[in-house]
């Protein structure tokens, strides 16, 4: 989990890992490889998927087409699709509808479905619960629990409740620097630390 106030640099961090922005200094290592000089498509081909803040779904394409596109090496595996439909039934329902007509929550589901249509080693997710109703967030939590079993997730979140439920390790950023790393349960236990790092108490930060 990557937490921090607005403007701390969390999105920048994800985008730079993905190669969308160039790092001006330093290195990025993934599985022992240096990737900061690679182009985005090459980084993606190493098994990294990116779900941006605005979800990045293609509104003019159908849901099916969105998924097809994400399955780069050929038609998507049937079993994987079944899993996705099990996690997000709405995808199956709207399979041939325009992605632009989906609700906010459904778009987010599509974005995540797209990211896992093929096996990935790392998922970069930027604020998955942003603007979503609590009921949908609950579904999201379930989905993420499933995802955690097969892939590594690096999630940027403002919603601490979501973060604490799912996160194993946490890093907190402020003004472009990491100011705290550690286990999630330690952060959860220490309210004073939460207050200092995130600026708001747990109850208020829903």
């Amino acid at each position, binding site marked *: 989990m990557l937490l921090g106030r607005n403007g701390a640099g969390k999105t920048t961090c994800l985008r730079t890992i993905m190669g*969308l922005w160039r790092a001006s200094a330093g290195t990025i290592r993934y599985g022992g490889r240096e990737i900061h000089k690679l*182009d985005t*498509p090459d980084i993606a081909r190493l098994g990294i998927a990116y779900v941006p803040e605005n979800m990045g779904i*293609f509104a003019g394409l159908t849901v099916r087409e969105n998924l097809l*596109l994400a399955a780069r090496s050929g038609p998507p595996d049937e079993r994987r699709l079944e899993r996705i439909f099990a996690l997000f039934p709405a995808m199956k329902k709207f399979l041939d509808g325009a992605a632009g007509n989906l609700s906010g929550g459904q778009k987010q589901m599509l974005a995540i479905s797209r990211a896992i249509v093929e096996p990935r080693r790392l998922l970069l997710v930027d604020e998955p619960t942003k603007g979503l109703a609590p009921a949908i967030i609950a579904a999201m939590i379930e989905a993420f629990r499933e995802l955690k079993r097969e892939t590594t997730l690096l999630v940027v979140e403002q919603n601490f409740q979501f973060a604490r439920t799912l996160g194993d390790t946490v890093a907190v950023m402020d003004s472009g620097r990491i100011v705290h790393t550690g286990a999630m349960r330690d952060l959860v236990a220490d309210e004073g630390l939460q207050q200092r790092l995130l600026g708001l108490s747990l109850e208020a930060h829903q």
Partner: protein
Amino acid sequence: MKTDWLPLALIPLLALAALPLVSTPTWLTLTVAGLAMGMMIFMMACGLTLVFGLMDVMNFAHGAFISVGAYAAASVLIAMKGSMQAPSLAENLMAMAPALAAAVAVAGLLGWIFERVVIRPVYGDHLKQILVTMGGLIVVEQLIHVVWGPDMIPLPKPATITGSVLLGDAAIERYRMLAVLVGLAVFAALWLVLNRTRLGLLIRAGVENTEMVESLGYRVRRLFVAVFVAGSALAGLGGVMWAMYQESVSAGMGMQMMVVIFIVIIIGGMGSVGGCFVGALLVGLMANYIGYLAPKLALGSNILLMVLVLLWRPRGLYPASKA
């Protein structure tokens, strides 16, 4: 997927609006003429709109591909003059086929060179793009003069596709019917590629959001080159069709079409082939109807049409791109 039929309906609407204003035979002639002109403009313009929608590059030198394609084809046609003049349709088509192929190939090749040499260094800088491509246009136009001479080259239509067919009282030019057929074929082919192939999927997605396509692991640069070359090739095809329509080839013909092409892609919406198609047909019809009814207004009518469309839909009829 629910299709937006409204803009498409404008075409028959415009045609019907003109019907009471002229006699029926004239209407038929004008409508076919308008559709034919629209088809040719579509071929010339679709590459530009796709390139802009996908690559965010405005190639002001697009007219160069039109001219070069026309000249390449002209050379072939002149060499095959005999077959062109023969009274047999089959022989005429046998002469036209290599000419069209030459137009497509040469224009496409020029497009490939252009993308590598001229455009690539200025991705992302719109100001420089405009300047550099304008310069490229001038240079190519001058080079055409160097290679093919300073004069206009006459280019008569093939013998069996000249003249008109009588449908009742209406005289319909054969060549225009051919142009409509070719245009429809090109549109159908484009539609199929865009909507039924993975490549088309990539292009449509890329027009919307290039970054995301890259994040999915696709090398978008290669896609750019392919689309640019295809767009240039199509422009060449449009060029040769237009040149035969005008019965002459001149170095400045590409540049002359640029204003109309810009109007068409603005009306259609950047990045949309469908929009370009509708826009081109509307412009073609409008030009012919007004050209008959009020010749003095003819040239300005396109601009008027553009303003009206923009007032209705500020981003064009079918805006597809992130712009």
